[in-house]
């Protein structure tokens, strides 16, 4: 019984992590059809912002939940101005430019902060489940991811800004003709995506090795999740994270960590072969 519960929690945790690290990328891709290959470095910047803020004496929770998204969101505004805006509609060029940005960010952070930064450990202690113990912070991550997802959904669904975002996503030209300053919508979407990435980076910081190159461990995973999910940013990313996360976690349990990864990639490839437009290209098409 406790084995089932503990395993379930691990699966949920795997799903939540995947969702958390992919959401920022999904927002930017869903809104703007821009693939931000510097997304991994946005996570890294979020983790660094949180750690540096904690070192500066700021409360841990404030550092993770406020400082990190704010810093990376502002950085997103700058990147959108200087790079993304100039390359709208040129997907390959944007990928190349953001890839360059990712290398530059790794280099810059290494130069400024060196290869190592003293992280902080996960708060909230551990929780005993029968014979197993799991981290309280891991449970918090699951809850935080669900709250974040619900918050993004509520903003899109119930606020005027969300209405504008949804319409612009579906038909930018028509939105512009109706009076929407689409450039500003894009700039804000990119900043919002960056802020969510920064938050995600800060939230995973206590559970991961925070080094300048940490983004590379995440970018492929989040990229696969978003592409497998398809166009609908929330439904797509959630369903893809749910599927790939459980395949990976359960695969790791039943076989080995190597095969767990292989299985996850195999499922992603198979899905894209069957549903080239992603899961939401076929199912939940009208959802967010």
């Amino acid at each position, binding site marked *: 019984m406790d084995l089932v519960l503990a395993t379930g929690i691990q699966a949920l945790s795997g799903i939540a992590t995947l969702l958390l690290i992919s959401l920022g990328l999904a927002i930017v891709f869903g809104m703007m059809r821009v693939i931000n290959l510097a997304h991994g470095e946005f996570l890294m910047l979020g983790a660094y912002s949180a750690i540096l803020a904690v070192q500066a004496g700021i409360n841990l929770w404030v550092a993770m939940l406020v400082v990190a998204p704010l810093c990376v969101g502002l950085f997103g505004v700058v990147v959108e101005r200087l790079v993304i805006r100039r390359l709208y509609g040129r997907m390959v060029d944007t990928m190349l430019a953001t890839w360059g940005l990712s290398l530059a960010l790794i280099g810059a952070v290494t130069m400024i902060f060196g290869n190592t930064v003293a992280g902080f450990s996960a708060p909230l202690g551990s929780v005993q489940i029968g014979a197993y113990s799991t981290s309280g912070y891991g449970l918090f991550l699951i809850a935080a991811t669900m709250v974040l997802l619900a918050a993004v959904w509520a903003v899109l669904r119930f606020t005027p800004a969300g209405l504008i975002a949804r*319409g612009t996503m579906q038909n930018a030209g028509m939105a*512009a*003709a109706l*009076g929407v300053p689409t450039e500003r919508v894009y700039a804000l979407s990119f900043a919002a995506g960056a802020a969510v990435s920064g938050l995600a980076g800060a939230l995973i910081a206590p559970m991961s090795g925070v080094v300048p190159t940490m983004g590379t461990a995440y970018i492929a995973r989040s990229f696969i999740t978003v592409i497998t999910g398809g166009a609908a940013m929330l439904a797509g990313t959630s369903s893809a994270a749910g599927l790939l996360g459980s395949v990976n976690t359960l695969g790791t349990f039943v076989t080995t960590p190597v095969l767990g990864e292989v299985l996850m990639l195999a499922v992603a490839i198979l899905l894209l072969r069957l549903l080239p437009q992603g899961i939401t290209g076929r199912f939940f098409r009208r959802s967010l």
Partner: protein
Amino acid sequence: MMRVESLVAGYGRIGVLHGTTLGVEAGSCVGILGHNGMGKTTLLRAIMGLLPCKGGRILLDGRDIQHLPPHERGRRGLGYVPQGRQIFPSLSVLDNLRFAVVAKGGKDGDVVAEVLEEFPELRRLLDRPGGALSGGEQQLLALARALCGRPRLLLLDEPTEGIQPSINAAIVERIHALRRRGLSVLLVEQNLDFIEALADRILLIQRGRITREIPPAALGDPALVQEFVGTSA
């Protein structure tokens, strides 16, 4: 109210408009008649700012709006009902309408209620996704949506395309009502009956140029129609 002077525009290196000139007086309805592929849609997209122009001027209330992005043109009074309607497919009918109000920074409740007064057909559809409506319902929605932006000049692109005659009649009647309240209209069409029912002046577009004005009376003469348009009415 609006003047278009020697407009040159196209797609990439393909020229479509080669110096199009026309004017719309305040409160009038100008109809532009032309075959498929003559540049009607291109003209409206260029006026709306959705297509970059390579030459010419677009004057709205005497001021050149050529350098303005589409949303600024929308905010200065242009309303657009595009060909194919371009309803937001996953927004509900209500949200499609609210969108047009919120897009210009307005408060949605009152405006949408007012517009719905004039489009009672949409009332029972409010919760449906825009993509699930029939063509005729979508056309009414597109018109209602444009009106939610409180335009002064409405650009209508083939509103009768693929729509049953009863709805066409409803649209004609709706636009007449709006014109009585001062709305100006620029209508591009292939449907002779429809254009005849609405337009004060009718211009003929051929290969991206306005080639001549057709007196409304001429639309009744099959021989003239044959000559101008190449189709029998």
